[in-house]
């Protein structure tokens, strides 16, 4: 057996591992530093994390350049798959993380940030997500997924409130179930095709003409359940509102973006070849998922009394909206997915960051929860700039032009139109209208109600600090001037998606 191992180092193409290794090294470095001198200020770790993330980003830029020259690259026993999707999604993952990590530089002290492990885990998690998107091997996807998830559970729990533990336990338990579903689904695929590489699976299935369609569907079902959990599709979404509520606002904002884009990439890789091979069942089921997720989540968001929970449901709804891209499965729709998610990242990071800076230690009498609507009543009077910015994010989420998300919605609905999904396009549009109501509700509280007598006027900037304010400013500028960004983004994304064969 030993003789047969004859692999040249070059053919391994280890460079493909570089982007994932950088955060891992960073994480280890943090742990090492802590070993030598513990109890250092969080700013040190934040900066180290940022440095490594920037390096990560730089290596991504490098591989993006390589991709635009040579196309898709495989590496490490053909386990790594660096194609356009992988690069684009890693850009989003790393980019969003760079913006996220300074959110821990709050003016108030929080339990979790005093542990260097927080930052180490954070970097490990990023590496996990990067693995998840940069492969088409189900094993590696599984490993990446679990690495990231386990780190995430811990990060949530570190917020150290009753609710965060509850959230972590809920998330963890359901995550474990989802992991089981994923492995079961992989097992069925393996049983059917003898391979765990999506490409291979596709080839084998196409080769025998989907003879065992019933078993394929069983496999797809479990995959769908597991990814549906990750992407919070109804009815696998039940964790999302509780977890968002239980974790810190910044973490919730992060969770609404990064884990989901990773999930979308996997979903795209697994489901699109099936849809293109004419598995109508999947098309129908995805259609139902998309519509139900969008609509039901919207309806639940309508009746929330807490802004963060409302945003949680809104994230579910947005995820359903974007899921349509996978259902449609054209180059335009896949590009729309990335465009949408980049713009969504701006807006959602911004709005959760707004919640984050208004984080209170103690909840006053008139609030039923951390961010209940009436906390924001009359905000225009007490802190007008914050109110205007928050309104901006809400309008953007509602899809009011010319703010960021409008362009995403525009392109997404257009992709549905172009692919002949007429009814879907209409449903998507109407859902935006329903969603308008709950975003509007916050605006109304902020702009049209009187402030509650005796309310602390400083509450909206309670937790603010220069880094937080700059991040919000950055997000706000991105949201307002998105129309300038859209064209270059779209060109870039489309070429990458197209060249990856999607």
């Amino acid at each position, binding site marked *: 057996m030993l003789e047969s191992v004859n692999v040249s180092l070059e053919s391994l193409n280890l460079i493909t591992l570089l982007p994932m290794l950088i955060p891992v090294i960073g994480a280890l470095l943090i742990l090492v530093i802590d070993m030598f001198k513990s109890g250092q200020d969080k700013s040190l770790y934040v900066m180290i994390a940022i440095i490594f993330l920037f390096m990560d980003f730089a290596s991504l830029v490098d591989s993006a350049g390589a991709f635009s020259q040579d196309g898709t690259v495989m590496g490490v026993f053909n386990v790594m798959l660096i194609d356009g999707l992988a690069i684009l999604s890693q850009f989003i993952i790393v980019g969003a993380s760079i913006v996220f990590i300074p959110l821990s530089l709050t003016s108030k002290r929080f339990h979790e940030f005093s542990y260097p492990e927080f930052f180490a885990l954070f970097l490990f998690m990023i590496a996990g997500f990067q693995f998840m998107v940069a492969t088409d091997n189900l094993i590696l996807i599984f490993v990446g997924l679990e690495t990231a998830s386990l780190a995430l559970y811990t990060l949530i729990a570190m917020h150290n409130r009753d609710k965060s533990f509850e959230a972590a336990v809920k998330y963890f338990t*359901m995550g474990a179930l989802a992991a089981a579903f994923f492995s079961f689904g992989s097992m069925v695929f393996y049983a059917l095709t003898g391979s765990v590489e999506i490409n291979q699976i596709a080839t084998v299935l196409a080769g025998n003409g989907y003879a065992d369609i019933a078993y394929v569907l069983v496999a797809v079902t479990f995959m769908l359940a597991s990814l549906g959990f990750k992407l919070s599709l109804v009815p696998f979404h039940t964790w999302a509102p509780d977890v968002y509520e239980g974790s810190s606002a910044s973490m919730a904002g992060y969770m609404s973006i990064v884990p989901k884009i990773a999930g979308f990439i996997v979903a795209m890789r697994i489901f699109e070849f099936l849809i293109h091979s004419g598995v109508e*069942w999947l098309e129908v089921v995805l259609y139902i998922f998309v519509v139900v997720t969008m609509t039901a989540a919207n309806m*639940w968001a309508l009746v929330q009394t807490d802004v963060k929970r409302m945003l949680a449901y809104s994230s579910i709804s947005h995820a359903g909206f974007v899921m349509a891209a996978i259902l449609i499965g054209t180059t335009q729709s896949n590009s729309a997915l990335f465009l949408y998610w980049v713009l969504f990242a701006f807006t959602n990071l911004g709005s959760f960051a707004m919640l984050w800076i208004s984080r209170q230690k103690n909840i006053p009498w008139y609030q039923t929860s951390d961010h209940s609507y009436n906390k924001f009543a009359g905000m225009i009077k007490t802190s007008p700039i914050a109110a205007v910015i928050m309104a901006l994010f809400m309008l953007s989420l509602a899809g009011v032009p010319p703010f960021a998300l409008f362009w995403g919605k525009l392109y997404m609905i257009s992709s549905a139109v172009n692919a002949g999904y007429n009814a879907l396009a209409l449903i998507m549009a109407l859902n935006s209208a329903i969603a308008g109501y709950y975003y509007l509700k916050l605006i109304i509280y902020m702009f049209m109600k009187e402030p509650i007598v005796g309310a602390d006027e400083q509450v909206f900037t309670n937790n603010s600090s220069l880094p937080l304010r700059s991040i919000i400013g950055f997000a706000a500028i991105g949201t307002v001037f998105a129309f300038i960004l859209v064209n270059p983004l779209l060109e870039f994304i489309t070429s990458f998606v197209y060249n990856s064969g999607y």
Partner: protein
Amino acid sequence: MEVYLYIALFAPLVGSLFAALFTATPKKMFTGVIASLLIISAFVSSTILLMYILNGGEPVQVEMMTWMATGDLYIPFGFVVDQVSVTMMMVVTLVSSVVHVYSVGYMDHDKGFNRFFSYLSAFVFSMMVLVMSDNFAGLFIGWEGVGLCSWLLIGFWYHKESATWAANEAFIMNRIADLGMLIGLFLIYWNTGTLQYTEAFAAMPGLDTEILAWMGIFLFIGAMGKSAQFPLHTWLADAMEGPTPVSALIHAATMVTAGVYLVVRANPLFDLIPHVGLFIASLGAFVALFAASMALVNRDMKRIIAYSTLSQLGYMFVAAGLGAYWVALFHLMAHAFFKALLFLGAGNVMHAMHDELDPFKMGGLKKPMKWTFIMMTLASVALAGIYPLAGFFSKDLILEVAFVDHHYILYAVLLFTAGLTAFYSFRLVALIFHGEERYKLFGIHPHEAYKYMLIGMSPLLILAIIAGSFKMTYFEMVTALLPATEYHIHSHLTFWIMTIGTQLFVASSIVYAYKKYANNKITVPDGTSKMENSFAYKLLFNQYYIPYIYEEYLVKPYRELSTIFWEQIDLKIVDASVDGIAGIVYGTGEKTRAMQSGNLSTMLKWMVAGTVGLLSLAVVFGLAARYSDEIMAILSGLGV
């Protein structure tokens, strides 16, 4: 000549705007004087133009500027002074001059003196636009303008509920008719491509009779509103709520005759559709009788005169409908003089009687108000059509027209109406001026009007007497434009029998009226006499219950329907369904949020349930795919 045209047209406008400057200030005598002078200057200009036309001058036509031009539509502000319009201009400016001068006295004590002149002059301007326009659109401007001024003037004493109600009624009824007019205009435009009189009329003979008939009908509906023909007549009597000079000018002499003017102006059209003309004539005859009958029993001085106006308008429409346009116009002119005189006289009486209107409460006023008595009597004689006053020449002519055209029923109706006219006119005169001085019961000390008011009225008096003598001059003039049909009864014997018979019939009516009402036994009716309780009396006194029917079956249902539309349909159906959709969305969210129980066990169950659901779908689909051939076979067997 153009400069006179402009003076005639715009002097009233200037007067109106001038007076309008002082509407918010207390009474200023000079506003009345200046407005009157401007109107008189318009009158002088009209006279000059009349002389010019009489001497065979070419009609004066000017085009001031474009009003509307889009697509093929081109409407200028164009004005023409021809034989027909100059006649109307004369009537309008003359009567309005008199009324202006008279009003200076009549409105002497009124707070709204300045405002009154502003409105009155504005009315004259609108009326001038109406008669002088050389196209239908311009006519319509004037048409609506006089409607507006009529609204303003009827509701002049706006603190009175009845006045404002009457004003609104008049405006709305006129609007109904204006809609007909508008449709007529549209028909003319889309069929002839223009709204200019000359071009439109030139194009009409080439059109389908049916279209022409519709044009005629719709234009006549417009005329019906302004001239208060049945069934749009109720506003005219109610309009008497306005100041009396207004009634004289607008609701007797000028505005209400606009309908007649329209038919006369559109004579080339109506000539092409004699059957519509006959309908107009028949309606006119009906209205003549109908209005006269209501005047018989009415107990409101001004309303009696108003019904008489209505009745005379009926006469005019008979003439116009039968194609005797020049006769209609002639009667219009004569009627303007004596009817305005009658109204102004009534105004004097009202002044003297402190706005009392019931003639039964007057009596014996001839002593304190000698001049008024003389004027009103002469005007009534003229109205009754006694030789040689104006009414004889114009009204008898209409009877002759009907006779010559072999419309004997019309003739009979008109003849009978002439008798009624004489009766109610002199019933009024007798009640007011003769008999016992019943007013003393009410502690009133009547006095004669200001002298300059009486002098102001005198031109009307003179014209009411002598207007008949202009008949031939007039005939020669207007027939340059209107069909010059002369109506001669071929047999001289018939002619004399008819004329004398009519005169005798009328005279006997007068005598009967005097006998019945000029005696000393007249008392203020108290609703107990036998006559007052008879069905016919009640029917007539309540104006055939038409106002009641309108109120009960049109106004009230409209109001109720409006409320239903608002409260039941708009709020409860249209709006509620919108809110309902929103409510369903929200309610679904509210109901289904229980799914998020917060219990981890439930959450896990949802996840498993979702998976199992998908799995069963997959199994169904898988089986269906595996056995698709069999299923197809079964389905085709079922005939699907």
